[in-house]
């Protein structure tokens, strides 16, 4: 039985205001080549100037995953020719990275595991190549955007663990606010190193899959590549150390280049930049500014708010959700109720609309929940309100007022409506009397329909029971 040995190199763009080595804006989605200057286009004579914020963000990331921060680290030049690299070298770090060590805890199928990190280093992103039928275009806007590369140890043993690790990293980076981590925009990208071996035997030869840009791609690439390597090994073939490209359409990996034609990057310290020196005090200052992380919040939700572990974990997975939960709680102090609503209705809505954010302000969400909780509106109206305020963020109380959506709690009125339904449907009444209790639901449904869903469902149930008999 073969075992997978996987290591991940995760690239995450830092959301600093300006680029890593010049004053150009760091902004995704602008008109191509509008955020560039002599420095980030590699004009002759231009020199890099380090953005201190990028260093701070990289240290933040390092501290959030328990790295040791090097007080002395060095930028080096990674030399290679490619049209997306205007200087023909990337400013990166090799021998003296900013952060070393560290770990990330993951959970798959209820089993906890620690994935150890090798290092986190700071570097600049390359430009973006846009391939057209008539040729290839270069957009320099991305060139020089600060990037951290988070290199794990080969502690990962399955595609599920790889995805869990990646999700956890994403969650942490979002918590500390250093990156947008939008995989579809490329602000979070991942290279996978994978090899197979049998228990007790030495490690196998690895292959590397570059630039995977979704969780699904990571999952599929690993599954495919492991299967491919296993088949090769079973045929008695050797695995060739190489870089492979994963094709999202076919779901297969293809050889790009082998070790023999691997580039010699001729790294050496960049003489244009002085070494980064940070003091212990500075590191501690950054450490003390870190926000409450997922683990800490989940513990609080369990011990102070009485949520279950599962719910607490789900709520804290993303900082934006946890923040939102806490914000709604300020106006609607019923943790269990708010939690259920967010994990249920809100998540459902996010999935249905494919949105990454909750598109209702916490204030308005609390209003809906308070109206629902007090019986002022029913569940179906609450859901309807969520639809109406999603994106628009209109005042839900006003919608209730304008559209007359308040729940009907008037027993006399409801009784009259239900009596009319009974009178109109003698056949159904007969069936109930013959013992078919399922027909009861028909009357409840009709009553709700007659009141456009506004009738108090509990009251309707009781009345139907009473009046039919």
């Amino acid at each position, binding site marked *: 039985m073969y075992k997978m040995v996987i290591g991940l190199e995760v690239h995450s763009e830092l959301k600093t205001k300006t680029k890593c080595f010049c004053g150009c804006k760091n902004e995704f989605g602008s008109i191509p080549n509008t955020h560039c200057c002599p420095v980030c286009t*590699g004009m002759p004579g*231009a020199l890099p100037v380090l953005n201190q914020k990028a260093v701070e963000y990289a240290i933040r990331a390092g501290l959030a995953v328990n790295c040791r921060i090097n007080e002395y680290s060095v930028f080096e030049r990674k030399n290679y020719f490619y049209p997306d690299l205007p*200087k023909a*070298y990337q400013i990166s770090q090799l021998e003296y990275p900013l952060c070393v060590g560290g770990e990330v805890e993951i959970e798959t199928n209820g089993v906890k595991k620690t994935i150890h990190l090798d290092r986190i280093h700071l570097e600049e992103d390359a430009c973006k190549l846009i391939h057209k039928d008539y040729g290839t275009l270069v957009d320099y806007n991305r060139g020089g955007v600060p990037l951290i590369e988070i290199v794990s140890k080969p502690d990962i043993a399955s595609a599920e663990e790889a995805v869990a690790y990646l999700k956890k990293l994403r969650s942490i980076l979002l918590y500390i606010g250093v990156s947008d981590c939008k995989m579809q925009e490329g602000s979070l990208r991942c290279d996978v190193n994978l090899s197979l071996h049998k228990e007790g035997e030495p490690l196998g030869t690895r292959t590397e899959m570059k630039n995977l840009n979704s969780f699904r791609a990571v999952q599929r690439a690993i599954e495919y590549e492991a299967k491919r390597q296993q088949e090769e090994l079973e045929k008695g073939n050797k695995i060739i150390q190489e870089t492979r490209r994963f094709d999202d359409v076919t779901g297969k990996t293809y050889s790009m280049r082998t070790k023999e034609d691997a580039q010699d990057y*001729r790294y*050496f310290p960049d*003489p*244009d930049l*002085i070494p980064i020196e940070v003091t212990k005090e500075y590191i501690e200052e950054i450490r003390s500014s870190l926000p409450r992380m997922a683990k800490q919040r989940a513990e609080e939700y369990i011990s102070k708010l009485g949520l279950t572990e599962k719910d607490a974990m789900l709520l804290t997975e993303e900082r934006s959700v946890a923040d939102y939960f806490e914000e709604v709680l300020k106006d609607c102090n019923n943790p269990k109720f708010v939690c259920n609503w967010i994990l249920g209705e809100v998540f459902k809505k996010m999935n249905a609309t494919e949105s990454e954010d909750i598109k209702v302000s916490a204030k308005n969400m609390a209003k809906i929940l308070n109206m629902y909780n007090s019986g002022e509106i029913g569940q179906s109206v609450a859901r309807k309100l969520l639809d109406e305020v999603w994106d628009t963020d209109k005042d839900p109380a006003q919608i209730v007022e304008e559209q007359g959506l308040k729940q009907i709690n008037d027993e006399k009125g409801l009784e009259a409506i239900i009596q009319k339904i009974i009178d109109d449907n003698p056949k159904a009444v007969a069936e109930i009397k013959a013992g078919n209790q399922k027909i009861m639901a028909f009357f409840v449904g009709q009553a709700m329909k007659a009141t456009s869903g506004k009738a108090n469902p509990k009251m309707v149930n009781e009345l139907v029971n009473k009046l039919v008999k």
Partner: protein
Amino acid sequence: MDYLKLNLWEIKEKLESKEITSEELVKLCFQRIKETKELNALISTCEEMALKQAKLIDEKRSKNEKVGILAGIPIIIKDNINIEGTKTTCASKFLENYQSIYTATCVQKLIDAGAVIVGKANMDEFAMGSSNETSYFGVVHNPVDTDYVPGGSSGGSASAVASYQGFSALGTDTGGSIREPASFCGVVGLKPTYGRVSRYGVVAFASSLDQVGPITRSVKDSAIMLQVLAGRDENDMTSSNTEIPNYLKAIDFDVKNLKIGIAKQFFNDQLNSEVKEKISHTIDILVKNGAQTVDLDLPSFAPALSVYYIISSAEAASNLARFDGVKYGRRAEKFSDIVDLYFKSRTQGFGKEVKRRIMLGNYVLSSGYFDAYYNKAKKVQKVIKKEFDDAFKKCDILICPTTANPAFKIGEKSNDHLAMYLTDIFTVPINIAGLPAMSMPCGKNKDGLPIGLQLVAPMFNESVIFKTGSFIEKALEGEKDV
């Protein structure tokens, strides 16, 4: 009066007293540039821009408005320094038509001080060379004797200043490229301390060694120029914020108790006897006036040349990789794919010497050789620095030749690369240590070729160079009169 032959500080006074306007001076200057065209010292001129600046300065002067300390003075810039709107060719076919899109900090400082930029000086291609014979735009001639090289790589700058085409020229010095041509042409060339002058906008050859400096006809002119050029630049992280002294104040014509360090390595067998004689004579004058000599040993002085060719070539290989034919500069016309585009553009765009350095640089950086060459060179560099540090504990300034021989004939060494590289044996160690040094004339040989003397000072102590240099200048001038 031939205004063009005055020193910078003298013409500064004439302009201030309004004896001559800047416009008149600039016109004279362009006339001179045309007359000396056969020297091939300049690659391009900027007459329109220069006259505009000259008129602006004259206008300000006539209204008694405040003007900078270089107001109205014609100055030349080496063609590896960017000036927005001008061509910056680095004397390479690759950048034959490259237009700068921004201005280097050092040039901006000159312009802000009122200087009038009149032209861009010829040079060895990408500043690689010691004779100005590697320029794509042809060799530059030494104005002292046009059969001889002007030195390099700032050969155009030195030739232009020596032939009165400008009152000063900026050069760049990575291993002697300001001092060697200054010595060959009989002018004053200063390489400031590494980090004293911003490198922003100066096309890099070897980033950790490159430094911009002035070539002038007098020591005082050099001090005035450095006063303008020096200072921290937020665009260059390697520039220093060490305090800038008033350099003119250092010129006090007093060398009493000055301790002059002389290493035994300075006067070796290869040293030309006439050079040796002139340097010794100058030292004697200083001693007669109260200075003392201190014997030193700098065992790593000669090995510095090997260190230099490893470090400078490694950095150059990386710095010149951006010239790939993709964004700007020369692109080969016919190519089959991207690799072919790189290959052909670079093959066609670079000259032999540049290719030699790129190959050497990539070799010493390549995996398997990195430790043996680059890392070892960096270690030896530390030893060299330490030797100089220790030397300056015992003395205030070092005096040695700038070059072992005066200028050689055009073509004489162009096929003997080792002999060419050995030309820099006295200048290269200074860059390796990051120290400031100046070459100044100290006489001529029997053929009338200038001999250069080199003054080397501790880090950021250019003042002691100006102090000693101006004394020597005055003393030698006095001898002529006798």
